């Protein structure tokens, strides 16, 4: 019976090509617009590390006078999203979490061994070795540096796949050296391609940008005075001049993450942080009530308002557009079905019950939905291409459809078409056979 209805639906759709095309186009365009924006929105707000997002926590410590708030900033509670050097070091020394890392983004000038080539810039991240297992960084060659390298301020680096391709032609470069700002570093590992979107572990600096090209021990980067290329914030007291003064200042420029596998360990860490801040209050460094915060990945993304207003506006507009397309398809379907009232009357008179009419019309709507969905997918691909052309490279990185996005598109268009078909179909079921036959 189902295939017979599908057959009937196709015949009926062929009978009025213009109306059919209009309905498919309406649903297709609506799906195309809404899926284009939804894909970007999902990429912006999606969980970048779903296996562990509840075990990874960003740490905040209120080291600034809460009364001394600046007149901007996106943090609603006035806490700073980054830490000072002093606090980062104190927390690292305590080893209170299963894994932890302080980190910051900076850069070097790399001088190639071939004297013909000009030096070039590399964006680099200073971190502790826990960074790699914490954020599940995959390795192509070698491995993260050892914990001892952190303690010894060792001259070791881990390269991104892209940098390894660029400098070593993709070969296994473990054991080779790189000259960064006149100092040699030994390669201990090369990552597989890895670039979580959004870059949740450092949302302050280029949140949809690529992951850094090079990683080195935090302790070594501080020795090398690797300049911060990220957000560097001071309030009032900027400390003594020079690098040492910077390290002793209340300026915040380090991201700090802790891995806490269970709810108990998170609770313990929370009270550990509060104790730490209370001690500092007693010691006189904080002349205000101790404030700390621990947020997991999803909470952190909400707190840092990862999704831009532009993206929200686009989603709102495109879904309203889909709604208009739905109303449109509904009107057309109504016209089409009511135009066939006479046919329906004959079928009813010949013994078809309401249910049969109902399912026949609904299948017709479903066929339109599927066709509209396919058209919508093509238009979504086109729309995403358009976004890549029109928007910055950063946002362009968010324009790739996943399998989930495709299934959402198909499901959405089917639902849309069926919703649009529901009322016309119900009306079809209401057709009185006797009345229609008499009218003929």
């Amino acid at each position: 019976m189902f295939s017979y209805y599908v057959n009937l639906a196709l015949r009926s759709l062929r009978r009025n090509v213009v109306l059919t095309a209009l309905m498919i186009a309406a649903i297709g365009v609506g799906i195309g617009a809404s899926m284009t924006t939804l894909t970007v929105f999902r990429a912006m707000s999606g969980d970048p590390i779903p296996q562990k997002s509840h075990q990874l926590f960003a740490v905040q410590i209120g080291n600034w006078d809460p009364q001394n708030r600046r007149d901007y900033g996106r943090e609603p509670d006035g806490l700073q999203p980054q830490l000072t050097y002093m606090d980062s070091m104190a927390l690292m020394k305590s080893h209170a979490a299963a894994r932890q890392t302080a980190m910051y983004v900076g850069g070097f000038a790399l001088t190639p061994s071939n004297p013909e080539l000009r030096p070039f810039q590399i964006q680099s991240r200073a971190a502790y070795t826990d960074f790699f297992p914490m954020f599940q960084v995959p390795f192509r060659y070698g491995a993260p540096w050892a914990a001892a390298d952190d303690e010894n301020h060792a001259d070791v680096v881990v390269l991104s796949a892209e940098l390894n391709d660029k400098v070593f032609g993709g070969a296994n470069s473990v054991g080779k050296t790189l000259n960064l700002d006149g100092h040699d570093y030994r390669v201990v590992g090369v990552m597989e391609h890895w670039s979580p979107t959004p870059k949740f572990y450092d949302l302050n600096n280029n949140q949809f940008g690529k992951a850094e090209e090079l990683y080195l021990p935090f302790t070594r980067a501080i020795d090398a005075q690797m300049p911060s290329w990220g957000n560097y914030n001071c309030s009032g007291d900027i400390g003594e001049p020079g690098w040492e003064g910077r390290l002793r200042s209340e300026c915040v420029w380090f991201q700090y993450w802790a891995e806490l596998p269970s709810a108990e360990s998170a609770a313990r860490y929370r009270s550990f942080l509060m104790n730490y801040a209370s001690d500092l209050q007693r010691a006189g460094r904080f002349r205000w009530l101790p404030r700390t915060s621990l947020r997991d990945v999803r909470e952190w993304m909400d707190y840092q308002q990862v999704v831009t207003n532009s993206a929200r506006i686009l989603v709102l507009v495109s879904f309203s557009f889909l709604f208009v397309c739905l109303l449109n398809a509904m009107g057309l379907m109504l016209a089409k079905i009511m135009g066939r009232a006479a046919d329906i009357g004959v079928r009813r008179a010949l013994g078809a019950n309401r249910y049969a009419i109902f399912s026949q019309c609904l299948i017709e709507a479903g066929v339109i939905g599927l066709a509209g969905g396919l058209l919508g997918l093509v238009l979504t691909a086109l729309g995403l291409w358009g976004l890549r052309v029109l928007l910055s490279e950063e946002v362009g990185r968010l324009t790739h459809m996943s399998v989930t996005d495709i299934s959402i598109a198909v499901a959405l268009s089917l639902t849309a078409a069926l919703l649009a078909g529901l009322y016309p179909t119900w009306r079809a079921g209401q057709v009185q056979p006797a009345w229609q036959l008499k009218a003929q």
Partner: protein
Amino acid sequence: MEIRPILSAMRRNKVGAVLIALQMAVTLAILCNGLFIVEQRLSLSSRPSGLDEANVFILTNQWVGNPPDLKARTQADLAALRSLPGVVAATVTNSYPMSGGGSSEAVKLNPDQKEASATTALYLVDEQGLQAMGVKLIAGRNFNADEIPDKAGFDDQVPPTAAIITRVLAGKLFPGQSALGKTIYVQFQKHTVPIVGIVDRLQVPWVEGDSWAADFNDNSTIEPFHYFGGYYHYMIRTQPGQLASVIQAAEKQLYKLNRARVIEKSVPMLEARKIAYKDDRGLAIILVVVCAALLAVTAFGIVGLTSYWVAQRRRQIGIRRALGATRNAIIQYFQTENFMIAISGAAVGVALAVSLNLWMVSSFAMARLQTGYAFVGAAVVLLLGQAAVLWPAIKAASIPPALATRGGA
């Protein structure tokens, strides 16, 4: 035109009429909010930066390692750049408008103030700075060559000797009085800095639509320093038409002086503008496309549904024609019908548009919609309806009166 028969005919097609009216309402709401955002983003992205954009370019320089002779190297570079043919002026600077990177500082009028008087972007340039930027000095004077101390890196806490601020910042700090000769505390908050000049306009580095710096877009402070460090920008202004040739010569000349450096790319200010506003312009284009598609969908929906109504009423139309109605009367019938539907749709639409905007004001920090937009939107939707209904109406008018006598539908 008799309205009553139209109403009673509509009563038999209630759902169809409601569907069209609703479509028009939502279309109107999106249309005027969408175009309002487009207008805002476009005017945002055409704000002047204050620089002589057509003739200024930026050359970002990073030294390899931490050479001890940074000052000498920087001075040699500057001398070379200034002697290139076609160069009007050149300076070192820590940042530039539309770059997206720089320093924002609290400005205070006395050091014990808890709440800052204003937030400002800080630009550090030398005696050729104003000329290299091409900003317009509207009061006071430029920096003198003898009041420009050295500053080795942004952290170097050398007291600044003077400041030139923008007109907007001056108005914010000293409303109703001249800022010239007054003193402020900025950056390290340890030293008073006298204001020696006021420029008409100089934007902060962060200008794009979603920027966190939107509140102080025109608050800039220029301080005189011979600034040098591992990483900084040369800002170079050329004679008109010489930009491209100077860019080429400049990079070559600097590499000739010293190879141990990285020059990522020289960026003309017009290029920097394109990059800074790419997302705002992109959003505007996307919204225009969506609005156009929306109008098309709504128009075709009206065409489709009205055509169906015409087909349904062929016989009645034939009878009316046989009874003496002119073609125009038939066309007018459908136009009036559509007008009535559109008017109710537009009424709902205006309300929807305003509430949508109010919601966006509260959740996206959007500006309030000017009511003009809603009425222009309503007019557009009404005209759209009339245009869309024309073709089916003309088809209806061409139904021959003879149809009435033939009996069949």
